[in-house]
């Protein structure tokens, strides 16, 4: 988390102000209809996603994504009639094994929602496999910092400009991106020792205006052994799981 909008992250501790704007206490204003939303976003050249028949999903094609994403997101956030002030989530989809899929392999769906008006929009950004990069929007929405990390961790999409693009769900020794369709579900990866996280803490300190003179000495304990003796000796560990595929084969319909 760097400074947001040029303002340091912290303001004075003591100014606890009630930041409530009037709309926060009122009932939600009626928002734009899907058509109005589409037309409001016309200039970004979005097309409506045919896959989504229940919500409004607009597709930002892979070619435009790199250049337009940030503008689009700032527009969504700042436009007086849109005010999509909440980024709910970024969900990444790997279309590798999607039947009859044409187009880039990955798509990222940004879920936006306005707290002022009753409307939501989902922006689907297509990402090519061989150049899986997108500009980061962590400075526009703070939550994007972590959601982007999650997307990178799980799907392997790089967000350029992200200050701390590290694994978040998986451990730091993990190789690969588990939610990609070509990652086998049962391919386990062991962790020998936890991440000391000094770098992250120091980065945070620097953001807060400190200068790190001497970073703490890191003590690494003994990495854990692959398998504990006693359990292995007893032969109690390796029990193959019943295979449901096999079951189907044997049983038949």
């Amino acid at each position, binding site marked *: 988390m760097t400074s947001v909008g040029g303002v340091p992250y912290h303001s004075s501790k003591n100014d606890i102000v009630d930041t409530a704007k009037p709309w926060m206490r009122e009932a939600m204003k009626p928002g734009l209809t899907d058509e109005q939303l589409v037309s409001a976003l016309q200039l970004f050249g979005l097309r409506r996603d045919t896959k989504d028949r229940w919500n409004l999903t607009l597709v930002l094609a892979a070619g435009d994504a790199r250049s337009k994403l940030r503008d689009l997101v700032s527009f969504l*956030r700042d436009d007086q009639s849109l005010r999509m002030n909440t980024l709910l989530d970024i969900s990444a989809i790997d279309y590798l094994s999607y039947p009859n899929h044409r187009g880039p392999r990955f798509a990222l769906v940004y879920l936006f929602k306005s707290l002022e008006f009753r409307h939501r929009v989902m922006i689907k950004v297509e990402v090519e496999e061989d150049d899986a990069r997108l500009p980061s929007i962590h400075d526009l929405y703070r939550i994007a910092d972590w959601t982007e990390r999650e997307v990178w961790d799980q799907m392997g999409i790089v967000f350029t400009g992200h200050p701390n693009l590290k694994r978040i769900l998986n451990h730091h020794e993990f190789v690969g991106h588990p939610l990609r369709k070509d990652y086998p579900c049962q391919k386990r990866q062991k962790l020998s020792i936890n991440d000391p996280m000094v770098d992250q803490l120091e980065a945070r300190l620097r953001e807060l205006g400190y200068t790190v003179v001497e970073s703490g000495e890191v003590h690494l304990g003994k990495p854990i052994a692959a398998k504990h003796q006693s359990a292995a000796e007893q032969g109690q560990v390796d029990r193959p799981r019943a295979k449901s595929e096999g079951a189907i084969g044997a049983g038949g319909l």
Partner: protein
Amino acid sequence: MPENIDHLIGTVYFGLFALAALLCSAGLLMSRHPLNGAVYLIGVMLSISGIYALLGSPFLGVIQILVYAGAIMMLVVFVIMVLNQAQDHRVPRFDRYSILGALMPLALLAAVVQALHAQPMPVDPHALRGDIAAIAPAMFDLSAMPGHDGHGYYLLFELIGVLLLVAVVAAVMLAKRTLESTETPGGAMAEAHGATHDGH
């Protein structure tokens, strides 16, 4: 008979306390880490307070524990812990010069003992037992206030107040710079300027 037992007890305990005090101060001299030293010094204090009690000034003994062992040494221990990196890094704890420095006082000691030895030291049988019942009136003998005559340390009592005031202020002045530097202008979560434009 009982006087003898009492005498014996007094001597034995004085011997024990004196031994403890000496051993502890030797420990202080040799200690590797100041915290060790501090604990040794506390041992000295406790032994000395025992000796005070044996010498007939129990109040002083109590104050010795309460203030010296309980407060002053606590402060020292706290500072050792606060600074926390006070390991004496020199591998030989003494170098050549400091051994010389250590030996010099011995000469002084010899001279003092010599002088003491020459002096007969009779114990006055009328010496008062310095418990609180005696100390308190001595300290606040207000017959010394204007219009009266007598002795009293009431002024010293107030002076202690001044001394403490000065000490506290001086200490804070000294530590002031460090104190200020630790006051980080932390903030609760700042308003997210520019992050969201929520109506205006």
